[in-house]
């Protein structure tokens, strides 16, 4: 047999040069076609931009109560205080701006924790199967049924008492950190379930079997073959979870259990809801901020579903 014969097999015409299109690029193209997804992305980018550059452009410092003296508390919007002032004499616009980094820290922080636990637990359960799977999924069910808010409120209140006169008292944003940690610890169960389902689906795919056949190690199979293929579904559920985490923190703040040192939208509502009739701007502004952020992440998740799972919609 000669090269002649091999050359004679060649039948496919040389493809025209075009950019490589992986699943991510295809996903982006579908995402760009989804109007709700793009709206979500724009809203999220607005929040992110506010969090990043907001503190540099905010008219007042977060803890600056000087407007109390000049226009006074509960003053309506003016040139110096575009969104008015609140019950405590803070500038509402500045407080809302300073709330953005907190909201993002909660959303991203909590979901990073949830994603780390969820992917680990779900991945091990799905890949190993058998008894390991049974045990881990019952453990997951256990976390799914614990009422998150009761636990968080109890822990935050007890913690406030417990740290008095200990070195922990001086840790900055300790309360907020604990809230982030707890929201994360109580939101991983759906991620674990999704990860398990995806790993179960993927581990029997032919390309994974093929990888095993050519001697790929377990690590390669997990991190190069299975996990990247599971990511599209996981990103959707994580994006949805970010909105949920922001909302959860707002709720805790609104109930008065927030971190007194941090500026949080929920807490602004808590401080100002009693003056709703006198100074509606002080309650509506943080409320709108929460609304925009959560809506943004949910629409983003919606667009990501369109992008990575186009069949689910039709």
């Amino acid at each position, binding site marked *: 047999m000669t090269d002649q014969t091999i050359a004679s097999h060649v039948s*496919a015409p040389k493809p025209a040069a075009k950019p490589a299109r992986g699943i991510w690029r295809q996903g982006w193209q579908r995402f760009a076609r989804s109007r709700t997804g793009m709206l979500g992305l724009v809203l999220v980018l607005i929040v992110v931009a506010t969090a990043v550059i907001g503190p540099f452009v905010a008219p007042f410092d977060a803890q600056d109560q000087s407007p109390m003296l000049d226009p006074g508390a509960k003053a309506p919007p003016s040139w110096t205080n575009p969104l008015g002032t609140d019950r405590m004499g803070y500038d509402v616009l500045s407080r809302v701006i300073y709330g953005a980094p907190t909201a993002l820290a909660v959303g991203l922080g909590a979901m990073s924790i949830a994603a780390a636990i969820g992917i680990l637990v779900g991945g091990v359960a799905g890949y190993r199967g058998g008894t390991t799977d049974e045990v881990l999924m019952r453990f997951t069910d256990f976390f799914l049924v614990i009422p998150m808010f009761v636990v968080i409120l109890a822990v935050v209140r007890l913690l406030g008492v417990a740290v008095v006169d200990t070195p922990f008292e001086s840790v900055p944003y300790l309360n907020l950190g604990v809230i982030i940690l707890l929201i994360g610890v109580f939101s991983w169960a759906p991620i674990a379930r999704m990860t398990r389902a995806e790993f179960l689906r993927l581990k029997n795919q032919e*390309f994974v079997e*093929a990888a095993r056949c*050519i001697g790929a190690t377990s690590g390669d199979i997990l991190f190069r073959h299975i996990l990247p*293929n599971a990511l599209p579904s996981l990103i959707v559920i994580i994006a949805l979870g970010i909105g949920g985490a922001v909302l959860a923190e707002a709720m805790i703040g609104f109930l008065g259990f927030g971190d007194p040192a941090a500026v949080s939208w929920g807490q602004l509502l808590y401080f100002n809801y009693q003056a709703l009739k006198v100074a509606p701007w002080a309650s509506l502004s943080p409320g709108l901020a929460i609304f925009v952020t959560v809506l943004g992440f949910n629409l983003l998740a919606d667009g990501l579903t369109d992008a990575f799972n186009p069949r689910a919609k039709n």
Partner: protein
Amino acid sequence: MAGLAAETQAAAAAPRPPEATASPAPVLVSVENLRIQFPPWNAPVRVVEDVSYQVRTGETMGIVGESGSGKTLSSLAILNLLPPPARIAGGRILFEGEDLAAKSQAQMQKLRGRRLAMIFQNPGYSLNPLLTVGAQLAEILKVHEKLPRSAALQRVEELFRLVGITDPGSRLSQYPHEMSGGMKQRVCIARALLCHPALVLADEPTTALDVTIQAQILDLLEELKQRLGMSMIFVTHDMGVVARIADRITVMYAGQVCETGDKQAIFARPSHPYTQALLASTPRIDKSYAVDAQGRRERLPTVGLAATPGQSLGGGCRFAGRCPEAVPECTRLVPQAAAIEPGRSVHCLKRGSAGVPGHG
């Protein structure tokens, strides 16, 4: 398939070069009394029962059988990659003097891809959609030969050229979905050959391709096999394909071997009733089929009755229920191999096999 079916007869009839009958090459892999079972373990389902065959160096063994005949499972068993909960319940798989069935997964991982390689049925599913083909293939060289990335990619490119991929250099950075089915199968073949394995297991590598591409891929495999001096186990349900590529054939039915022998001998003188029925039911382009007075064409013969349901696995010869020549003992006694010609054996009580009482 009609085109290949015609070639079936042609290839079977054509005298082969004497290489097959010359002094036999050493046996590379020897499957001995392989038994694969599925749970429940107190009454296991014996999907593969006492299967034995040998593949010599440089030879292609075609394993033919219908769905559920255990042909894929017995080849996955060679790689020690049976899908759970299936397990090897007995027998040995001797490869280069070692029993693969007794090896640990860690030991097997070092052999897979290096000495043993597999080509899958559907090239569309057997490549990771998220990695470029170059990266996927270079990974194997990284694992087995600790080659740096650039050297690995160079080797991959050479292999791409060998398997007839156009413009191999730029194909390296393409994703599987940018390629046609035939091209993907060439990539899969390149992947299997990357470390020059001694044995390639091909599980219906042409079934998902259309007939013209199928012919190209078969030619390619044949050519590569001769060039690289490797052995191949070619699993298929397609008599046309097996006639074209195999040197020797093992016919399987419901987890049992029906007969083994040289391709020409089996096509020219099928011995087992199942093989006879199978060949009789293959449409032939060189045969004219009679048309009766109502204008109805003569019907092709079929392998009689329905396929054996899974529950009845066990007992004697599993083909007995469909066999036109079955006698009562057939359902009770398992036929053992009987040599009927040099290098040819058949498992059938009516062809001189000894029978031993079955397990079931």
